[in-house]
């Protein structure tokens, strides 16, 4: 089994997403596809799964030239793909979701529910989710929804499996599950292409890696022959500077040394899901990273603070402010960055400049806007300032959205998994922006499902800590050198004895 892409080109409205990209993958190996945002890897996968039409180039399967025009063609050629955006339908059951594209029928045409359930159970068993079969899909935590998305792909009868970013919302144990499943398919001789932004996962899962940059295939290496620095420098096209080790602040930091008064005082913020109250104090320019297993109240914390869930009172400096809704929050110079671009970030039908200036102009009513400067400052890769935001890659979209909020010079920045699905380089740039804002006095509460991200963001920064939530309560607080991946994982797994 072998799939070969030959000189595939594709452009979207003047932006070249793929420039004569050639790539060939054979069965017996798990190939990683690595590249920055907009490097073209998602486009390549979309072309192979019939979602996007290539402009030129050819696709060969086992040496035979194939034409893939629709998702149906891909299905016929036994190509299965998971998509970066969830394609889960909350109004259907788990079993309907997984079998949606190829439902077993009874003789006279009705859906065979018994067989659907059995086949679904087979898939769920592989994923370790068989006890969830009767749950409504939307009650599943996000990581399990992504596993279901993965399940939808492996339910199909495929020869070629392309996994696009499915692990970006998964925990370590889920990644292990995915790894075992992929290894099983590898043994069966299936062709597997795996996209992830988490380098660690690539070392765990893949045998070889193809690196893309600006729509071109740069090189292919055996995974054993490469390290972070090499991968990053090829991805970026220049050698990487190591931010973390050079940081002068990398030392233990004790709270008693910092006598500055807290700027924001949040008292007894109710977390409805667990019926608990959270209290939190933040100083000016302080970064609080929030860790925890998915659904332990992290999202609810930042969402409540942004006024999305009813009225709250908090102390800002000496005054008490009342936030009744997001509008109040924005008027008080709060910012909210969501990782869910499709629903909570991008105005898909609007251009880049409009997407940047929306908050500043429409809510804050300030008119001195120069959105193009923000695009430049955020290093957004774009063709025209008026192009639709949805024509950009996911990471570039997120840069626009972060630009929108930093542009308002917020006093409190709230973020819910802001780096979901964006690449290492864009993530580093985002962290630099956050650090700069913090130095200018913005306080931040950043929720992340990626523990490495919290380490990058908080451990090297003097005025930062990581709080770990467990069942709606703060179970641990980590500072300075304590902020390591191992520590965070350890604390997220069990209820710590430490208070706040």
């Amino acid at each position: 089994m072998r799939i070969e892409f030959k000189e595939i080109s594709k452009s979207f409205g003047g932006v070249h997403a793929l420039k004569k990209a050639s790539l060939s993958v054979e069965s017996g190996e798990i190939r990683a596809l690595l590249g920055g945002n907009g490097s073209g890897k998602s486009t390549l996968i979309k072309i192979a799964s019939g979602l996007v039409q290539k402009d030129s180039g050819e696709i060969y399967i086992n040496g035979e030239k194939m034409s893939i025009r629709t998702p149906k063609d891909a299905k016929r050629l036994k190509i299965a793909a998971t998509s970066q955006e969830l394609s889960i339908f909350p109004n259907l059951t788990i079993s309907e979701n997984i079998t949606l594209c190829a439902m077993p029928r009874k003789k006279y045409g009705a859906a065979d529910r018994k067989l659907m359930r059995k086949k679904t159970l087979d898939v769920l068993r592989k994923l370790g989710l068989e006890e969830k079969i009767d749950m409504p899909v939307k009650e599943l935590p996000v990581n399990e929804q992504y596993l279901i998305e993965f399940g939808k792909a492996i339910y199909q009868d495929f020869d070629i499996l392309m996994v696009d970013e499915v692990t970006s919302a998964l925990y370590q144990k889920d990644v292990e599950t995915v790894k075992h499943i992929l290894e099983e398919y590898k043994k069966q001789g299936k062709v597997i292409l795996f996209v992830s932004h988490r380098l660690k996962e690539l070392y765990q899962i893949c045998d070889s890696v193809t690196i893309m940059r600006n729509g071109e295939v740069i090189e292919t290496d055996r995974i054993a022959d490469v390290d972070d620095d090499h991968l990053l420098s090829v991805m970026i096209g220049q050698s990487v500077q190591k931010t973390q080790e050079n940081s002068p602040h990398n030392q233990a930091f004790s709270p008693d040394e910092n006598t500055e008064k807290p700027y924001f005082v949040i008292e007894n913020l109710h977390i409805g899901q667990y019926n608990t109250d959270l209290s939190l104090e933040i100083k000016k320019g302080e970064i609080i990273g929030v860790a925890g297993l998915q659904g332990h109240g992290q999202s609810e914390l930042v969402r409540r603070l942004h006024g999305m869930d009813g009225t709250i009172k908090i102390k800002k400096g000496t005054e008490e402010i009342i936030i009744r809704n997001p509008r109040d929050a924005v008027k008080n110079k709060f910012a909210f960055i969501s990782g869910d671009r499709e629903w909570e970030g991008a105005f898909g039908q609007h251009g880049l400049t409009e997407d940047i200036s929306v908050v500043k102009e429409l809510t804050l009513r300030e008119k001195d806007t120069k959105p193009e400067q923000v695009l430049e400052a955020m290093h957004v890769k774009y063709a025209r300032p008026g192009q639709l935001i949805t024509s950009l890659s996911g990471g570039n979209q997120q840069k626009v959205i972060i630009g929108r909020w930093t542009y308002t010079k917020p006093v409190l920045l709230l973020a819910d998994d802001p780096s979901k699905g964006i690449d290492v380089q864009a993530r580093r740039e985002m962290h630099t922006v956050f650090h700069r804002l913090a130095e200018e006095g913005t306080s931040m509460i950043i929720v992340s499902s990626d523990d490495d991200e919290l380490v990058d963001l908080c451990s090297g920064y003097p005025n930062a800590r990581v709080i770990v939530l467990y069942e709606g309560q703060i179970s641990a607080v980590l500072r300075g050198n304590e902020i390591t991946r191992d520590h965070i994982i350890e604390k997220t797994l069990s209820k710590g004895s430490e208070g706040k």
Partner: protein
Amino acid sequence: MKTGNKWRRITKWTAFPALLLLLVSLVINSFVTNNAWSPLILSSFLNTNTMIICICIGSSAVIISGGIDISLGSLVSMCNVLLVSLMMHGMPGYMAVLIMLAVSAAAGAVNGILIAFLKVTPLLTTFAMSTVFAGVALIIMNSPGGSIAEELTDLYYSTLAGIPMTAFIILILFAIWKIFKNTPAGIQLYAMGENENKSYLSGVNTKALQVFVYSFAGLCAGFGALAVTCMIGAGDPLVGSTAGMTAISAAVIGGVSLAGGRGDITGGIFASLFLGFLTNLIVALRFDAYSQQMLKAVILLAGVVLAVLVGRENMKKKGGK
């Protein structure tokens, strides 16, 4: 414990608010109407409302699929005058009915093709088509008139095993829907209603489903036209004009979400009957004709608001976005 669960399942049923409204209106009606429960009155009541129920089934199906069809009322008018004029030209009844039903389904298919292949928004497509249907109706017959074979009227008012014939008209549509709903395509229709793009990306044949569901809605209008023609025994080019919107309201009261993907046709049937009782009630209470319209509208609005609120509450409890 078990009965508790059952009760909760009933109250969570999307059709529950409509069922409740229907029961309440039934009770009130029995106080103001003499012999409210006599089979004759009940079956004549059903006869009066069969048209709305038929269109409501079609409307519900379209809304569940993520679209909307506001042309069904005019389509009823068109089919009504078509049927009458075919029979006036001496065509045998069954033949005329079959042709009329085929035309209704084809008219619906035109809606579906425009929406699926030309990507015109459903609201605009069906609005334009509703003007077309209304125009054709007036060309066929520019004022009320004509008559149909008595046998057809007699058949319509007769009963089979004690069940009025009209009930069978509804039952046919109900059965088609229920059978379809349980096929893979039926499940995919709900997925499409939730998110058309995602379902296309998942490999669902969204175009075929759209053409199907609008054709089915057209067929529903055809059955509605059959019912109303038998009831009034004549043609009227304006007979269905307001029925389309009433049927959409009934679908919403019946628990179908205008956002698509949620609900079923059963609630719409309850809601159509509820609106029927309401009309009875207002007439029985002897309001003058002008106030009647107003009062009906206010209650309709209240019903729709209530249904939407209940639906939203249920979604929240289930933890949706």
